[in-house]
């Protein structure tokens, strides 16, 4: 066993530190050492996207990143987007447009959709489908996920305009 590393990163705006072996994956450190269980482990083979987190402004599958690579990084998980009393527009839209059934893929879906809308605030349906291609859902058939993201985009753009 190799020596544990002292890791420091910013998770959901909070500075956190923990000890972890270099071989520990980011998803395991988030869930098991930091108690952040929003991102899920689906396939653990970097296919399904349930473990998607925002990593220095990029959507990544945290089952395929070593926590050591996140030393000094800014990480955002679903917990950092909203909370039950103050849902993120994407969370509200997924709820209102039936963008989930079992909910297992949802934290990854919303975290990925968040980054997609940062980069492209007015995506077409095709751009949403292409931009969400790294996240699998076995329940919804994706139609309502796409609708939810479109609804959230409109909501966020309207709020932005109102603020300006």
């Amino acid at each position, binding site marked *: 066993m*190799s020596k544990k*590393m002292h890791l420091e990163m910013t998770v959901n705006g909070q500075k956190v530190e923990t000890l972890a072996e*270099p*071989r520990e994956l980011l998803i395991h450190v988030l869930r098991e050492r930091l108690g952040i269980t929003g991102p899920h482990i689906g396939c653990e083979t*970097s296919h399904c996207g349930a473990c998607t987190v925002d990593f220095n402004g990029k*959507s990544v*599958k945290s089952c395929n990143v070593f926590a050591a690579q996140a030393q000094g990084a800014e990480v955002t998980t679903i917990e950092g987007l909203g909370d039950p009393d103050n849902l993120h527009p994407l969370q509200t839209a997924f709820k209102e447009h039936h963008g989930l059934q079992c909910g297992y893929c949802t934290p990854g879906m919303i975290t990925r959709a968040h980054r997609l809308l940062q980069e492209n605030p007015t995506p077409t349906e095709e751009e949403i489908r292409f931009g969400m291609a790294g996240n699998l859902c076995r329940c919804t058939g994706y139609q309502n996920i796409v609708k939810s993201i479109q609804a959230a985009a409109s909501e966020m753009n309207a709020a932005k305009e109102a603020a300006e």
Partner: protein
Amino acid sequence: MIPGSFDYHRPKSVAEATGLVARYGDTARVIAGGHSLIPMMKLRMTDLDHLVDLQDIGELRGISVNGQSVEIGAMTTQHELIASEVLTEVAPIITEAALQIADPQVRYMGTIGGNVANGDPGNDMPGLMQCLDATYTLSGPDGTRDVKARDFYEAAYFTAREEEEILTKIYFQANGAGYAYEKQKRKIGDYATAASAVLIAKEGDVCSFASIAMTNLADTPIYADAASSELVGSGLDQAAIDAAVAAAIDAIDPAEDNRGPIEFKKHVAGVILRRAIERAISRA
């Protein structure tokens, strides 16, 4: 899915990185985006004692375009390639290919250097780099040297890169030719069943330049010289395209696997190449 134990290093310069690799020899591996290496480590098919993370080495990042000369740092991600307007302007075939690699999350992490250096016959960039006649710069303890992409690949996962060398950059001359990167895959995120990179230029109605490379149809990318020759000097008529496709199918050597038997792969290769040639002509 936990890899074996290793020590983690994050050097700040190429010299420091090559020093670490030289010191630890074949017990060390460099990691770029890690989206080929980490899955292999999780499956315990790759065993190493020292992981050398290149993410903090600024000199390995970035795209520079000077006229038609293009230089891309090895740690430039697929996402950065796609987002680069200046690269899309001068070498749109790279954008077209990068958009067909894996999925968004993988493209944020996956790098062009890792893609070309790994030697995986399924990777898309090696064939594309052969099509573009790109050159790779390798840095090792004795300095740097350049190797043509067309001379780099020896067998699956075996390349001209020595163990203590790091691939630091890729450069090529763009030529404004019509282009296409065409890829058949079973689903998003899959490697190609067959893919083809094609560049074609015309003078009047006559083909003045052609370059064709094939991906995942042998244990290395295939630069299909004979296929390109069938097009150059022709009027890009059906007979010339048929001859080029036949020559390319002759040059590949696909293996049977879960993407299909050999005959199927040759058939798909022909379909894909024909589409790529036609699209490149339409843009020439």
